[in-house]
């Protein structure tokens, strides 16, 4: 059976930090159009701290320990809006993963669903408000669909989740923000994607690619 192991999750957080480092300036540019231009910095610092916290854990750490360490690391490094939201997401994933050293790869879509639930709980956002939820929610729905349909391959299911997140983030350009800092813009937020939804798509892609790799490795 293919497994997501703690070593696999360490690797995912390393890739996540690298991805956000690479995309920092682009995310800041997007945020400068409808926000305060710091989103890329928050994501870079937060994921770097999360990766460092995960890497610092002893070999005996479980998947839950790793997600919880990532949550604490991210939160204490950035604060901002993304801090509480992603800290809650990772804590929610920790609960789903549980105190195990590995989990079946076929269960990994439930982690995406758990993260989306955590973000929705903390931020009290619903789809359509031009926030990161507009990327997380479609991915989570696709994860649920995968869990119900045994015939879909995991790789196809994960790819569909990433596609759903991308489509959701693209769709935010057609939305008027009603929550978060861009909400004060009214119609002027139209035509620009939400930077939080764009970075969410990047994060979902890194997780899903990592989960798919777990399957291939297994």
């Amino acid at each position, binding site marked *: 059976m293919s497994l997501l192991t703690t070593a696999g999750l360490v690797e995912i957080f390393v890739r996540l930090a690298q991805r956000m480092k690479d995309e920092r300036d682009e995310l800041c540019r997007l945020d400068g159009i409808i926000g305060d*231009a710091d989103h890329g*910095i928050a994501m870079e610092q937060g994921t770097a701290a999360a990766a460092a916290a995960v890497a610092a854990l002893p070999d005996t750490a479980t998947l839950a320990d790793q997600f919880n360490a990532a949550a604490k690391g991210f939160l204490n490094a*950035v*604060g901002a809006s993304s801090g*509480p939201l992603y800290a809650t997401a990772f804590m929610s994933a920790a609960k789903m993963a549980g105190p195990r050293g590995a989990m079946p790869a076929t269960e990994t879509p439930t982690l995406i669903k758990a993260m989306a639930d955590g973000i929705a709980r903390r931020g009290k956002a619903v789809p359509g408000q031009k926030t990161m939820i507009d990327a997380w929610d479609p991915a989570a729905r696709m994860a649920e669909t995968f869990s119900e349909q045994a015939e879909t391959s995991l790789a196809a299911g994960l790819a569909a989740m990433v596609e759903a997140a991308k489509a959701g983030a693209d769709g935010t350009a057609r939305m008027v923000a009603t929550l978060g*800092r861009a909400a004060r813009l009214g119609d002027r937020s139209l035509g620009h994607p939400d930077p939080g939804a764009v970075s969410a798509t990047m994060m979902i892609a890194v997780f899903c690619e990592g989960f798919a790799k777990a399957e291939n490795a297994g």
Partner: protein
Amino acid sequence: MTPTQKIINDGNAAVDEMLVGILAAHPRHLTRSLAAPRAIIAREGPRPGKVALVIGGGSGHEPTFLGFVGKGLADAAAIGNVFASPPPQPAADAAMSAHGGAGVLFMYGNYAGDVMNFDMATELLAMDGIEARTVLTTDDIASAPKDRRSERRGVAGNVFIFKAAGAAADLMMPLDEVERVARRANDRTYTMGVALSACSLPQTRRPNFDLPAGEMEIGMGIHGEPGIRREALRGANSIVDEIMDAILGEMNAPAGDTVAVLVNSLGSTPLMELYIMFARVAERLDAAGLKIHASLVGPYCTSMEMAGASITIMHLDDELTRLIDHPCDCAMFQQGANK
């Protein structure tokens, strides 16, 4: 693009290096929490039986928030990265350090990130049996219509609102009363600003928005959030008139009432321009039959090196007048007993 010019060593270390400097410059006023280096505590101020006023928010607005920590004003402040809310831990540590057994009042500008982090801090404090309440400042009248006041941002009016609440706490009013005063101060404070050029974050050193030469943005937020409208730069009187029309229209104060005025620089706009603006503000208030009781002119709530200014008017009553006049002694803001 050429990076913006800043006198810094390392963009990522800018906030912490600033803190080292502030503590070195103001040892008589400020110290920091041993547990959380970004929780800054007043040396004098916190005492048994007194409500602890804890303020905070992102860095980059100095002297807001750190400069208003001291006797008679805030007991502590938690600060975050540039333009980003502090995490819950420094906010909780600031409250813990300033706590005098009579409860904690968190006050900060109304931004989604600050609300989430300070609410998590409130949850942490509750676990230790410390009651913390929150009053959000929402004085920026350009950021949402009047009927959605609770959605507005908190900006330069913070100075007067924090001042009133800090005085109430210093006068040993109980938590209920300090909270009531803070809400009343916020309800009667109105701010609107205009931006002439962008600011840049120390980490990116790129302008955080694009404002073509010769243009201004009316109603821009203190993090560079786009405002109401963009148009060609006009003369000072015309700009002040637009802002004062909006403020006076909403404030609806009867002739004979008194106000406190703040003409605030967003960073690089000099005192000369602020006083030119003040002259027109005074004319407009006089024409409306309103008397200026207190005036502040200068950089009180900034946005890094942004050019531009904001006007804040607090509509005073007897109670707020007494609180605004109450002495305070902070690192970057002092007021004597009989001003």
